[in-house]
């Protein structure tokens, strides 16, 4: 009886543990199934490379190249903002902040990461966009530049906190060896500690990038929403995520438009999956390098 009960519990937990895999596969299946009609109708290559996104015109055109460009340009712009600030903040927390200040600042940075994306979007729309419009004399503040800045701010905590963890894993002996050779704190930090944590830092950056590519509400509110290839950083753009969020409401279930939005979801999923797998591989190697087994 006891044995039966024990075996039963083991089974229950095994089955429940597989739900994550089940959900992941479910997502892939759903995206493929719902996205397939448009890929069949237009062809996968034309879908990806087409430069016209007119889903509601007659005849409709489904080319998501401008959306991909929008996603990438906003993401790259955001990284330009977030990487120096995030890594710099982490270095400050790691090297310069005293114990007491660190105990205050680290939670503060973590709390910044808890701010919901809708609040960032709202903040971007109300405060940053008018500011950008005024400073740069552009027709609208809702554009790729504003989106990149706001998303960059959003990504700082992710990058800072993961980088800080990576810096913490660098053995003290590295630092001590460098000091013993007469190197200054700055030289040690930049030439020894940061490179030693290098793969940890790159993991942080890639994960931050993946977050940004997948971020929805903020870009939906501040990127302006024009589905054309931008000519300047101050042009409005429409990244993939916001296209899905904005158009799903009006797309008729089962139509090509509906299918196209799922296909965009599939592209998005594959992009973030790739980034995650890359970062996981780097961090695995990094753990082995520093002898942190897991």
């Amino acid at each position, binding site marked *: 009886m006891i044995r039966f009960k024990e075996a039963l519990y083991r089974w229950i937990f095994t089955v429940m543990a597989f739900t994550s895999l089940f959900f*992941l596969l479910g997502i892939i299946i759903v995206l493929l199934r719902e996205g397939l009609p448009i890929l069949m109708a237009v062809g996968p290559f034309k879908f990806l490379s087409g430069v016209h996104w007119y889903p509601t015109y007659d005849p409709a055109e489904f080319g998501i190249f401008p959306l991909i460009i929008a996603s990438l340009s906003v993401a790259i712009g955001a990284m330009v903002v977030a990487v120096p600030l995030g890594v710099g903040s982490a*270095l400050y927390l790691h090297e310069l902040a005293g114990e007491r200040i660190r105990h205050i*600042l680290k939670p503060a940075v973590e709390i910044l990461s*808890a701010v*919901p*994306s809708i609040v960032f979007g709202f903040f971007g729309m109300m405060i940053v966009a008018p500011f950008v419009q005024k400073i740069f004399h552009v027709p609208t503040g809702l554009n790729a530049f504003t989106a990149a800045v706001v998303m960059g701010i959003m990504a700082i905590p992710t990058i800072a906190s993961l980088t800080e963890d990576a810096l913490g894993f660098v053995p003290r002996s590295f630092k001590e060896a460098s000091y013993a050779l007469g190197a200054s704190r700055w030289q040690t930090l930049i030439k020894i500690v940061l490179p030693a944590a290098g793969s940890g830092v790159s993991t942080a950056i890639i994960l931050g990038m993946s977050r940004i590519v*997948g971020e929805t509400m903020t870009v939906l509110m501040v990127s302006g929403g024009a589905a054309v290839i931008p000519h300047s950083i101050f042009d409005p753009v429409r990244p993939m995520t916001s296209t899905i969020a904005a158009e*799903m*409401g009006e797309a008729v279930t089962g139509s090509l438009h509906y299918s196209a939005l799922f296909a965009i979801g599939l592209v998005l999923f594959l992009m973030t999956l790739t980034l*995650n797998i890359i970062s996981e591989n780097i961090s695995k190697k990094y753990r082995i390098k520093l002898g942190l087994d897991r």
Partner: protein
Amino acid sequence: MKNKIIEKIGFLFLFLCIAITLFFLATIVYFVVSRGLPALSWEFLTEAPRKSMTAGGVAPAIIGTFYLIVGTILFALPLGLATAIYLCEYSPRGYFVSIIRMSINNLAGVPSVVFGLFGLAVFVKYCGFGVSILSGSLTLSILILPGIISASQEALTAVPFSLREASLALGATHWQTIKRVVIPTAFPGVLTGVILGIGRAAGETAPILFTAATFFTRDYPSSPLSECMALPYHIFALMTEGSHPDQQAVIAYGCALILMVLVFMVSGIAIYLRKRFRQAFTH
């Protein structure tokens, strides 16, 4: 001498980085608080919107968010805790473990809007739950599942092995040991994960966009199958729909303030609990 100057400049740069980061945080908090506070009143918290979203309160959105949180935790906690128990207690080096770990890691990286698509296709359409609290909660629970799992795993691994030994040596079965010793000891750590999950579920918008949220209902949700208003979605809707942008913006500030207070409180509690829990097991 030159080195000294470079070092000074370098450290100044690092200081500027953290200062700018904190400045952004402070700016966001400042604007949301200073403009949201005037909107807040007893009426704002307890009444439904009136005059096409330009007056009245946001109570249905608060209630809706609350229901969504409860539903989400109801699904995600058992699943997440069970997964963590399987990984830590039953099969620390089994064959399936690497597959499950891989799934969890990748699930954590899926964009929130993709969860929304999944919820739309599966819960709303295929299961026939419609746009409802149930569909939204299920969708959100998949989103926070990886977080609950990893917090639970951390909590379970922090339970000293000697306690398991003690229990087993008394003739307790494996399951008795898990239920009566391991889970109660790990509970504060699991709670941290749940609280962080609450913060996440409260703030996410994209997953409920097509699965649960509606801009306006006069009635409070009556069953898990009703659609509902939700704070984050309400902010979005106020900013993008309706015909009185100025009056709506004031209400949106109020919603943003409530949401932010909620999320800050929740993460503050979670960070505090996590610290206490970690200290309890480092002798």
